[in-house]
């Protein structure tokens, strides 16, 4: 029998603890496949966030550091500078990256740290039970915006790709979606490119995944995907925001 889909070498045997229909597992798999396909398993290390993906340090089959909430890009900076021969990625949620860790992500990007950042935007704080995130959409109800996000009071969602694309240093910035099989195939290409650029020490690479949190949104997985397509994609436009490698191959 021919094996056409096996567990990537870059994942441990530890079973994922994510809810049914959650996209953290999909994002993990894409990153792991890219590590395998770029032959980086012996030289790569990752930094896990605080959020639903906190146990990412158990899942990736390489050396991993668990960072304090939001600090992953600073931790990754320390590792990369200490071990320039290695290749470092962070994996972060929207609360982690776009709220408490805003300073760390902006300045790592601004320094052009030669790391890859994988950013899962599910418009909510999943782990702590569905509170408002910096990416929660206008009028979206969460446990801490029970009447819907009031933009006059708390502002609009932050678009991280656009924000980081104002900086000069970042090498590659792309927003992809995990909402359909076709989107996932496009996302895989982006992840692969980020990991390849990382392998070649080209500079700071950033991939945002538009995802869902069925559990805290209160939808079935399919409904959640539909809701995200209708509400998130118009606000968080997919696409390449920076690619300094374009035409430089």
């Amino acid at each position, binding site marked *: 029998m021919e094996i056409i889909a096996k567990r990537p070498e870059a994942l441990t045997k530890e079973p994922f603890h994510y809810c049914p229909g959650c996209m953290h597992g999909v994002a993990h798999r894409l990153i792991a496949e890219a590590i395998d396909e770029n032959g980086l398993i*012996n030289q790569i290390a990752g930094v896990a966030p605080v959020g639903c993906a906190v146990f990412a*340090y158990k899942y990736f089959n390489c*050396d991993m*550091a668990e960072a304090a909430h939001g*600090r992953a890009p*600073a931790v990754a900076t*320390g590792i990369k500078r*200490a071990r320039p021969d290695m290749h470092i990625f962070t994996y972060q949620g929207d609360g982690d990256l776009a709220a408490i860790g805003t300073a760390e992500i902006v300045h790592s990007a601004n320094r052009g740290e030669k790391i890859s950042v994988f950013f899962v935007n599910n418009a909510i704080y999943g782990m702590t039970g569905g509170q408002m995130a910096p990416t929660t959409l206008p009028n979206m109800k969460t446990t801490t915006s029970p009447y819907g996000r009031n933009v006059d009071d708390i502002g609009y969602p932050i678009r991280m790709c656009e924000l980081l694309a104002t900086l000069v240093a970042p090498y590659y910035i792309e927003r992809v979606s995990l909402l359909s099989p076709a989107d996932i195939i496009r996302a895989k290409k982006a992840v692969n490119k980020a990991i390849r650029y990382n392998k070649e020490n080209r500079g700071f690479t950033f991939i945002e995944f538009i995802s869902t949190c069925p559990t805290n949104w209160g939808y079935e997985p399919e409904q959640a995907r539909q809701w995200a397509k209708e509400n998130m994609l118009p606000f968080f436009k997919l696409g390449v925001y920076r690619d300094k490698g374009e035409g430089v191959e």
Partner: protein
Amino acid sequence: MSKILMKGNEAIAEAAIRSGCRLYFAYPITPQSELIEYMAKMMPKVKGTFIQAESEVAAINMVYGAAGSGKRVMTSSSSPGISLKMEGLSYIAGAELPCVVVNVQRGGPGLGDIQPAQGDYFQATKGGGHGDYRLIVLAPSSVQEFADMASEAFDLADKYRNPVMILADGMLGQMMEPVEFKPAKTDAELQELANQHLSWCICPNEDGAKKHHHEINSLELDPQVLEQHVLGLLKKYAEIQKNEIRYETYNISDENEVLCVAWGTASRVVKSAINEVQKQGKSVGLIRPIRVWPYPYEAIKQVIGKNVKKVYVFELNSGQMVEDVKIAVEGKVPVDFWGKVGGVVFTPAEIKEKLEECF
């Protein structure tokens, strides 16, 4: 090697580099700025890493990453910035990572001022960050000692896989004194240092070797497992208390009627005052903790068993270490405290007056 006249802030930076520190992350703050500036100048010359971080929070988390990679790494700041490092220090202690943090203390609370003070004693020795953890805390009282503590701090950090703080102050940071440096670590020694942590740190897999999966982590959701981890830390701390207490005795004798206890810059002033009252035939001794955690309780207990009628604690704060002295004295003799707050440094004449009142 001959002696060089140098500021404390520069001496500690030079000594750290000689001790094999090739990674330094910090954010500017007075009165430690000469330290970060020295590192900015010298690190590129030794092919080291210097990053002026976006905040002290970022700096200590860069330290977490570099220490997790098994390399000698240092950060420095002054009081308000050290408060920001407390989150990271708790994680570093929890994950058992070796690193060195220098606090060139200034007056507080809040933004306070930029004059020398000792108001961060509680923060350094009793916690500061959350959870059950300890820092090893070294307390220099001269520029030479400040410099010597660099290699000591890195060795302790490596030996116990624990963060070590050097608790100095603005006086020691700014003051110039002659200092003699130990020879710099050779490339071979640096290599050896880098290899000592390979069994647990973030490092590449060697070709052909069994693939490792090292986790740098302080999280454990199962309380029974976390309990075991913390009990392991406590065992390590007990070991540190057994092996690593250091203190200086000054003018200690059976004739001492008053025993002073003072640390860091304060102890220098107390020594001058003791010399003065000694001329009047009044016998006063001094115990100076060189390390304030682990604390020399036993040494203090030994001295008060003799002729001592009173223990006098002098600090540049509102009375912090005095609580440890009281633990040591166990109520056997009265313990008095006198200090200055807000970054005001007491004079030998003031201490002399206080001591004379004891007789």
